[in-house]
């Protein structure tokens, strides 16, 4: 299992992901600086959370023009798996590797707390298969721009294709996301963007271990 973690100026969950992957897979992931252009032979590329380039201009907008993005696109076109968490999700929508866009939370506040996301019935995907749809995972959020938006037609497409990976619980949507969407898959199911931080529910001192379940499942699926 070879995992790459992309580091941009302003990434701040890179170490957290590194530690989580190391702990769960017992193998060392590799940090990739955003100016690197050659990233082949990875089973999984992770774009961690943070405030790349200070979120200036628009979250993820500057990072989506970094040199490393071309290699990430190549990885995607080879059908490689990519996981974008929080700011990583924002970068994936900015690069159009995932549909939709993430705008400011409807309460206009940064929000950090634990919540449940519900696994959806999706197209075949290493990120969700292995979980029974309707499974609840308790994973924290920490973001200011997590309000997922797509227009009506695109939303219909997402639903029809089974691209919605996770939803917030009805009445516990923290940011105003359309359809309570917390995570979205690419059309081939190989790319996932999600706002919650699974790497923050991995260790015994965390409030939940559901992020560990998420990564364990992902690794099993990717290796099978």
């Amino acid at each position, binding site marked *: 299992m070879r995992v790459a973690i992309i580091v941009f100026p302003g990434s701040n969950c890179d170490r957290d992901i590194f530690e989580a992957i190391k702990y769960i897979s017992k193998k060392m992931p590799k940090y990739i600086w955003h100016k690197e252009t050659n990233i082949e032979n990875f089973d999984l590329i992770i774009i961690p959370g943070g405030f790349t380039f200070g979120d200036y201009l628009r979250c993820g907008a500057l990072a989506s023009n970094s040199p490393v993005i071309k290699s990430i696109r190549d990885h995607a076109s080879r059908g490689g798996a990519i996981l974008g968490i929080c700011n990583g999700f924002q970068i994936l929508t900015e690069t159009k590797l995932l549909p939709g866009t993430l705008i400011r939370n409807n309460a206009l506040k*940064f929000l*950090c707390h634990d919540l449940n996301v519900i696994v959806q019935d999706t197209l075949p995907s290493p990120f969700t298969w292995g979980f029974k749809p309707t499974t609840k995972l308790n994973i924290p959020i920490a973001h200011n721009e997590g309000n997922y938006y797509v227009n009506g037609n695109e939303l219909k497409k997402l639903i029809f294709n089974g691209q919605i990976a996770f939803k917030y619980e009805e009445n516990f949507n923290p940011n105003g996301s359309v359809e309570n969407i917390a995570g979205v898959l690419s059309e081939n199911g190989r790319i996932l963007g999600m706002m919650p931080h699974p790497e923050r529910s991995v260790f015994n001192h965390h409030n939940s271990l559901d992020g560990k379940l998420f990564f364990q499942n992902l690794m099993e699926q990717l290796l099978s």
Partner: protein
Amino acid sequence: MTKENINIECTLNQAIEMGLTEEEFKLICQKIGKTPNLTEAGICSAMFSEHCSYKSSKKWLKTLPTSGDHVIQGPGENAGIIDIGDDQAIVFKIESHNHPSFIDPYQGAATGVGGILRDVFTMGARPIALMNVLRFGDINHSLTNHLLRGVVEGIGGYGNCIGIPTVGGETNFNKSYNSNILVNAMATGLVNKNKIFYSAASGVGNPVIYVGAKTGRDGIHGATMASAEFSDDTDSQKPTVQVGDPFTGKLLLEACLELMKTELILSIQDMGAAGLTSSSVEMASKGNVGIEIDLDEIPLREKNMSSYEIMLSESQERMLMILKKGAEEDAKKIFKKWDLDFAVIGKIISPKKIILKKENTIVCNLPLDFLVNESPELDREYEIKTSKVNLSNNKIFNKKSIKTIIYNIIGNENFASKKWIYEQYDSSVMGDTISIGIKSDASIVKIHGSEKGQFKGKAVAISTDCNSKYILNNPIEGGKITVAEAARNLVVSGAKPLAITNNLNFGNPEKKEIMGQIVGSIKGIKEACEQLNTPVVSGNVSLYNETNGKSILPTPVIGMVGIVNNIEKIIYMNAKNNETLFIIGQDENKYDGFLQSSLYQEIFCDDLLGQVPPIDLKKEKQIHDFVMKLNDNEVINSAHDISDGGLLPCMIEMLLFNKLGININLPPRIQNLNEENLLFLHGWLFGEDQSRIIISTKKPDKLMEFSKSENIKIYCIGKTNNTGVVEIPKYDSICINKCLDLYNNAIPNLFP
């Protein structure tokens, strides 16, 4: 641009405008043997400001205990450092950003966080936790809403972006802060004991390096502003507020830590208050050397900046370093990688002077010893005033039902949950947060990577405290209580208290009763720190917190750090069903309850004056040792300190999470009171007597044995049940769901 005329002498009026007094100006002229030019006078004024020189408080700060077996670095450096074993050390400090935060709440608070983080990572530590202590005016005051929102957003704006978790703190509201809010930020970092960096410059000829962001005109003379009172035209000071850029802060943090892994760097200091002036003067003077800087080499953001402006700018995210000779190119590579400015701006010289050049002309030449050692130390007149008012409980007693009182306390803005605030902070980034001071009294962060095999790891525990009512009514006793309570919060969380940092926020020290608050609280803090073996390793003083002559409540904030040697021994505060609750430090005899200076008095009497609950520090220490012993022997299931609000509100806090109930076992003498004697019941339920802790246990017999053998008073309150009702037999019953609703929603309802 026209060349600066360095021969223009500073006039007395100009000097006074810069914040110097006439006496100080005369002293400067006499000591340097000339009338200073504007740049020189500006540098002197910054160094002599209260903020940099501690001139009003120095005499008293010197009396604080600052050493101990575990102290690696006491006050005088960028931050204090304590040893936690395994070659690791904890670096921490608290600092205020009060004045800027009132003028521009977002930027003021954000740069407060940025500044304190730099103080910690400049010593080689990776910051692991942020805390903040906030004071706002009356919740109904027209500015409170705007200030609270701005400050909270600013703290989050910086901390969330730079990726250091904000794990706790405290927020209080009182009308004395209406026009002078307090924003105190504390940062804690982890460092390898053998890789600590200090600020003392060394090695004549070694290069002086400027790194980080460019210098602009922001924050010029900020240190002087922070040392003056506000008046109604505070808005005109807006240009002196610094602007923070957490993104550059993050790059600077990573670049500095990367450079510190090499052997290239000799010393380093953050450009904080008074910017390039204080950093260069302090680094050179600590190293017993001089410094020469070429101002043409400073990376500037704006054109035509004068040497005065360059030296006094408080632009953020800048550091000053001394490198080994020849290390410039290797160091520069690291900063280029992070897209940061890197400039060789001067060198270390042997005469103990600060020499500044601009366009090949010397624009400043001042002796360093004079600037640092001869900055004034004042012996201000003081009067330690204690409240003469001695109210019997009878006077404070309120005839409302217990139910009404408890709902009022729990829904009071100074008691209710601050979730509305802390949810706006990223508290779980870095993955090591164990508690944000909600499920335990202290905030707890795991020492990264400290687990080994079966051993689950160590953690650092942090608490912040200040009860201003106590200080107002009795500065000495109040000072003791503030330290004792901070320590108690650590002990009930399973930690051992180690050391403190303090932030002394007061009004105008030129008034003798304010000076009395400063002197008195320092005396109290000193005594408590000595008794509890928690030396003061860093701190900050913020004076002149007054507007139009009205002072804030005295607010000497204590930030205490402790160690949890095994995270499996952490104690949380939520009780579970079927556990027995005990008060440690109190038995059923002779207890009337101390309602003076309490939250009960504050809410129902509209008056803060009264006596302060007595504190016996020896007893306090015994209680701490006892609780630690109980914890070692696995007698404690949960624990909580009895502080603001007294027994009943604090006990209810332990029951809220699991929505438990309890049938309170009242001592016989208050079981059947008639109406006029109900005050004894109120005293018992709401009194704020010190040195008391509530614990829950599954082993009451074992607890009673320990209580006998250790001779510690305990009192059994009763057994928790799952009814969700707190029964006070014959008097009242309280609904936990209602309490939970008030506790969670009081603040959101105030700030929709």
